[in-house]
């Protein structure tokens, strides 16, 4: 690159060389960075389309195009895992939204004894990640499983409950701030008009806070989708696994022979995420910085 800069500089000494020094070099650099960013993704697409379905020979990018790996997914429990992931993630998202919104509403609108200590406690509790306490989660679920198998090891319901345990700590603050931004005069007016508590909450407040509900639902879904350690401990049998546990098992046993399956599964599972991400890019960029940048 520097060589090129020098050549250009000789040809037209003033404006051209300044352009190269200030702006022009950014394009080739961008190409290099883009290569670093995209190469693994291109590679996984190529591996998913390769006919052999093994790691051996997957380095010859796009040497053959076949959908054999995608078809082979149907013969595995892959789609069961997709279903499990959607069930666990969906239920966690719905539960986290319902419980988080209700708690945030109470903290925002009611004045009661223990409100401030309650908020402080939540702030402290959420600093301690649930995942580190996985040993006692395991022991708790083992004990609960003896009483009610649905709440024990190897149950999706139990895993959802565990995720929901972390919901209040993680989301209440996010929602609390948003609820506070809705003027209190509105619910007072509704109360004077004769609305009940339930009506104010469900018909007045909830529609107004929809954006934050969507954010919390998305965050809860993503964290359930990406969680590995708790899912691996709780879900034991292959028909209960989520994608993270199942695909880990593919790669950790017989990496070489399962590679095509993994690649196809990764493409299938990440395409919706990728599409969603690109569609929401503007909001995600805004959301990331909105929390961090102060006016």
């Amino acid at each position, binding site marked *: 690159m520097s060589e090129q800069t020098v050549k250009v500089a000789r040809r037209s000494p003033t404006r051209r060389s300044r352009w190269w020094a200030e702006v022009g070099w950014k394009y080739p650099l961008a190409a290099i960075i883009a290569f670093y960013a995209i190469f693994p993704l291109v590679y996984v697409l190529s591996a998913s389309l390769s006919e052999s379905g093994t790691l051996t020979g997957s380095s010859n990018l796009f040497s053959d195009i076949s959908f054999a790996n995608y078809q082979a997914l149907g013969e595995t429990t892959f789609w069961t895992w997709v279903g499990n992931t959607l069930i666990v993630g969906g239920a966690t998202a719905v539960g986290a939204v319902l419980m988080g919104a209700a708690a945030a509403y109470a903290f925002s609108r009611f004045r009661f004894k223990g409100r401030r200590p309650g908020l402080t406690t939540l702030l402290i509790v959420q600093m301690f990640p649930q995942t580190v306490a996985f*040993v006692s989660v395991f022991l708790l679920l083992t004990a609960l499983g003896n009483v009610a198998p649905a709440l024990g090891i190897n149950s999706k319901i139990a895993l959802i409950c565990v995720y929901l345990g972390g919901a209040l700590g993680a989301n209440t603050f996010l929602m609390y701030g948003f609820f506070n931004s809705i003027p209190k005069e509105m619910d007072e007016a509704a109360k004077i008009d004769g609305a009940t508590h339930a009506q104010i909450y469900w018909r007045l407040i909830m529609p107004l806070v929809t954006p934050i509900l969507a954010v919390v639902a998305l965050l809860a879904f993503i964290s359930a989708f990406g969680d590995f350690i708790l899912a691996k401990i709780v879900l034991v049998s292959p028909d209960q696994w989520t994608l993270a546990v199942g695909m880990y098992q593919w790669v950790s046993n017989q990496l070489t022979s399962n590679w095509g399956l993994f690649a196809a599964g990764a493409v299938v599972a*990440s395409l919706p995420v990728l599409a969603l991400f690109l569609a929401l890019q503007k909001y995600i960029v805004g959301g990331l*910085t909105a929390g961090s940048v102060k006016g």
Partner: protein
Amino acid sequence: MSKDAAAAVNRPGQHPEPRVSHARNLHGMGWGFFVKLLVMAVINALGISIIMSAINVEAWVILGASVVLLVVADVVYFTKRAMPLKYMLPGLVFLFVFQIFTLGYTGYVAFTNYGTGHAGNEQQAVDAALIQAEHRVPDSVSYPLAVVRDGDTIGFAINDDGFVEVGTAEDPLAPVNGAAVDASGTPTEVPGWEIVPRSDLFSDQDLQDTVVNLRVPVSDDAEDGSIRTREGQTGAIYKSTMEWDPDAQTLTDTETGTVYEASASGNFVAEDGTMLPTGWVVTVGFDNFQRAVTDTALAGPLLEVTLWTFAFAILTVLTSFGLGLLFAMIYNDQRVKGRKFIRTLFILPYAFPAFMSALLWRGMLNKEFGVINDLFFFGADINWLGDEWLARFAILWVNLWLSYPYWFLVCTGALQALSGETMEAAKIDGAGRWRQFRSITLPLLMVSTAPLAIASFAFNFNNFTIIYMLTEGGPAFPGTSGLGSTDILISAIYKISGVSGGVADYGLASALSIIVFVIVGIISAVAFRQTRKLEEI
């Protein structure tokens, strides 16, 4: 406003509603109230079934907790007061059971020897020892036997010299009248019981296990031993060679005369030091913490793991923040065309799920067939994930790949929010590029990004997913610790705990969890203060 109420008022041919508050209007709250009633009925049904089942399996703590929770739920939702609690209770229940309780329980387990060989209370350990030392009485007769059932209860019917006797695990053998036996003496019909066909025994693995483990006491006196069967056709009397003396807290082996005494460490120990395999849970004080730093097999690897945990978390934040900031500064430039497209390309790794990235790179970095070696290192067999330092480098490299886009986005946003006037003023005052960056851009940037950097550090400190998916902590350290050079504390805890099988040491694992909690707590506290300081700039 309630639509139902309005509709009711406007409906022709109906009496006008009396003007009372809508809150008291039955039409207005009617269906909501019934939904609440229905939900509470379901919750009560579930709660009561859990309570019944807890009584059944004698899980007293769960019984107590579920009774308390159910009563609280009913009180909260059926009184007119406690409005805030009506909103918070569902979340609070989950928070208490699955977060606060687990945190507290970790604290308790950390001070016990809970793990393989120490799993129950003393009575369970005694029972286990008695069963373990059970032998078939020498030269004892074998009785023709049939497996019988009454609902879920499985029992044995034996033919004792022409008299059929039936018993279960709880009820000792007792004679029954009117039973029939076949030519070989096996009972074929027992009044009040259903004979389990032998074919069921072969096809049902669970039933088979139950039958093999079933012990039917011969009489009320445990000394008489119990009937057991190996194949479901003949039974014999088994007696334990151990004797339990509850007053002296000793188990005596009647064959060898060895006396095992209950020790403070939760084991039965003989005078010569031999120990029975099953012990019980006792509190051991700070033993687990002490073991983490003094145990010769464990202390060295654990120290390395701790150092690497810090190094990994700090380096990940520094490299990805640095690279993201650098790219953000380079491409936050009005003169570069197609910035939107470039930005989209840059952040693509962020949109790829993290756990799949780790698995994908695991294949790409494979020694023999990985694409990295094949395409970029001319087919060399570089053992990226098998060499101590290369594996550490690979982990940082992969984590950089998947987390720099986040910082790129954050820094781009923060840079765009900086006021152009300040920069202009600095330029006019004659500040060079470096000076501008060091004295103005970076400090202002830190105000908004420092909290995120600390959060990212805390997240990576416990980033189990990337470590376990990429290297599983390997390559292993020499020795018996089972840990490896890329293990971070949480993956070390995972291996030590044995929750995935193998020898379990919940006590030590919980003690290490406590240490992680303390570290994370300190960092959070410091971070909290630091961000306040930064805001004053």
